[in-house]
C-alpha cells in the first residue's frame, strides 16, 4: 500500500484527544473516502499525513518511509486541497494553477498544458484570466486544480465538492477518478455520504477520533442487503410519532427521520407512513434501497456522536 496509517493517536497538551488509534491504508489508483461528522478528527489526520502535526503515537508510512520521522518526504509526496481553499487574491485562476504546478516541481510547458486541460474539464474558461474575487464554488474548483495540476503520489482533497453546482460536481468527480487512474492514491475527506458512495473505492467512517467502520461501500452495506431505507419528513411543529416495531435502527435529525424496513414488511410500512401523512404528522416519505447513509448514521449514532 502506498499510504499506511497505523495506530495513529494525537493527544494535545490539555488532554484533548484528536484521534485515537486510527489505522487505514490507501493504494495506488484508489479513491479512499474519509467520512465523519464535524470534529471527528479527519482534518487532524490529514495534517498528520502532511507532516504538519506530529502524532503522539502510531506510524504513518508513504511507500514504506516513516514520514513522522521524515516530514519532508510527506510534503514531497502529497498534493493538498485545503478545506478552506487556497487564497489567490490578485492572481487569475490560470496563474494560481500554474504557480502551484511549478511549486510542485512541474516544468512550465507541461504545467500550462495540464492547467488548460483541467480548466476545460471543469468548465472554468469564463474565469481563466480574471483576477477577481471568485465565488466559493469556483474558488474551490481552482483549489482542486492547484492540487491536481501536478498530482503528488498522494492527493488529499478536503471537502472538494462543497458549494459546487451539480453539473460541475459531476465533472469534478470524473477528474478525481482520472487522477487516481493516473496512479495517485486519492484521500478524499467529505461529509457528503451519498456522493462518496458513488465515487470512492473504499472508505473509513471516523467518529470521536476512531475508525468506526471501513471497507468498500458494498461491504459496509452488506448487512442491510435485504432491507429498505425509509425516510420521513415530519410536518413542522409535529412531535415524533410512536415508532412501529418493523422499523429497524431509527434515527432522527431535525425534521428528518430514517430507519430500515425488511422487504416482507414493505406493505405494512407504506400503509403506516401513508396514515401518518394523512394525520398531518408526516409531510412526505420515501422508501428505497438501503444506502451508505444508513450505514453512516448507524455507526455514528452507535458511537454516541451526532453531526
Amino acid at each position, binding site marked *: 500500500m502506498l499510504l499506511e496509517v497505523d495506530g495513529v493517536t494525537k493527544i494535545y497538551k490539555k488532554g484533548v484527544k484528536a484521534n485515537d488509534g486510527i489505522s487505514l491504508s490507501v493504494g495506488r489508483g484508489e479513491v479512499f473516502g474519509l467520512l465523519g461528522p464535524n470534529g471527528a478528527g479527519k482534518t487532524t489526520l490529514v*495534517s498528520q499525513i*502532511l*507532516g*504538519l*502535526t*506530529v502524532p503522539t503515537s502510531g506510524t504513518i508510512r508513504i511507500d514504506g518511509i516513516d514520514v513522522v520521522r521524515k*516530514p*519532508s518526504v510527506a*510534503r*514531497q509526496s*502529497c498534493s*493538498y486541497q*485545503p478545506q*478552506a*481553499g*487556497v*487564497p489567490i*487574491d*490578485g*492572481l487569475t485562476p490560470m*496563474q494560481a494553477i500554474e*504557480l502551484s504546478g*511549478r*511549486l*510542485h*516541481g512541474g516544468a512550465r510547458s507541461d504545467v500550462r498544458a495540464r492547467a488548460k486541460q483541467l480548466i476545460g474539464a471543469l468548465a472554468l474558461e469564463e474565469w481563466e484570466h480574471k*483576477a477577481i474575487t471568485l465565488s466559493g464554488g469556483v474558488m474551490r474548483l481552482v483549489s482542486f486544480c492547484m492540487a491536481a495540476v501536478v498530482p503528488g503520489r498522494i492527493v488529499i482533497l478536503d471537502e472538494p465538492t462543497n458549494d459546487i453546482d451539480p453539473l460541475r460536481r459531476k465533472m469534478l468527480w470524473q477528474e478525481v477518478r482520472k487522477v487516481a487512474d493516473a496512479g495517485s492514491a486519492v484521500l478524499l475527506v467529505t461529509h457528503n455520504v451519498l456522493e462518496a458512495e458513488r465515487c470512492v473505492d473504499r472508505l473509513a467512517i471516523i467518529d470521536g477520533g476512531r475508525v468506526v467502520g471501513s471497507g468498500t461501500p458494498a461491504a459496509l452495506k452488506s448487512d442491510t442487503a435485504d432491507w429498505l431505507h425509509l425516510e420521513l419528513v415530519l410536518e413542522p411543529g409535529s412531535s415524533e410519532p410512536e415508532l412501529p416495531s418493523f422499523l429497524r435502527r431509527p434515527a432522527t435529525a431535525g425534521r428528518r427521520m430514517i430507519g430500515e424496513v425488511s422487504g416482507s414488511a414493505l406493505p405494512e410500512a407504506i400503509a403506516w407512513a401513508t396514515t401518518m401523512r394523512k394525520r398531518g404528522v408526516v409531510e412526505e416519505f420515501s422508501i428505497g434501497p438501503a444506502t451508505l447513509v444508513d450505514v453512516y448514521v448507524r455507526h455514528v449514532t452507535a458511537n454516541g456522536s451526532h453531526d
Partner: protein
Amino acid sequence: MTDSLRACKLLFIWQFHRFKRFLPMIVVIQVALAFGIVYGLAFLIPHIDSTTALYLATGAPTVALLLMGLTVVPQEVSQGKLTGRFEYLSALPIPRLATLATDVFFWLAAQLPGTALALIVAAMRFHFGLRIGWTIVPTILLVAFSGASVGYGIAMLLQPQVSMQLTSFISIGILLFSPINFPMERLPSALQAIHRVLPVKYMGDLVRWSLSGKATGSIGVAFAVVAGWCALGLLTSYRLATRRR
C-alpha cells in the same frame, strides 16, 4: 540550492501578482516619505549641520530596514494564518524558510528605491558626500534578515493580535531608544550597556559606513555582532518553521 532559488522565484512571482495592484501606490508613498523625512529633519533641527544630517540621513535606512522586518513580515504570517495561505504554503514541497526569504526580497525591492532617493535628496540638501561601498549589499541583507527573523519568530509564536502589539512596541523602542540616529553617548549608561550587546547600534554603524565611508565604531566588531545575531535569528526562525503541532 537550485531548488531553493526556484521556489523563491516562484513565490516572488506569486507575491508580485498579489500586490501588483498596490505597487504604484507603495512606490508613491515611499518617495513622498523620502522627501518628507528630509524636509522633516530640517524642521526638527533648525540649524542642522552636515555631520548631524549625515547621522540622521544614514540612520533612516537602518530604521526603515528594521521596521520592514518587524511590521510587514509578521503581518504576512499573521494574515496568512487567518486566511489559510500559511497552512497551504507549509504543505508545499519547498524549503522551510523560502516564504520568509521571499517576503524579505519582495519588500526590499518595493522599499529600496524610496530609501535610495531619500538619501540622495538629503545629501544634496544638507551638503554631505556619499561614498557607497560594496559592503552595502551584505549590510542590507544582514539588517533586513535580522529584523525579519524577529518579526517572523514573534508572529509564529503568538496570536495575531498580540504579535502586532509586541512588534509595534519593539518598533517604537528602536525609533526612540536606539543609537541609530544619534551617538550612543547620549543614552543613559544602562541603555548603553544593553546596546553593546544588542545588534541595533552596530547595524546603524554598518549602514553609515557602507554609505559614507565614515566609521562610528569598529566595523569588524559591528559585522561580527550583526552577522551573529542574524544567524541566531535565522536559526530560531528555522526551528519555528519546522516545528510541528
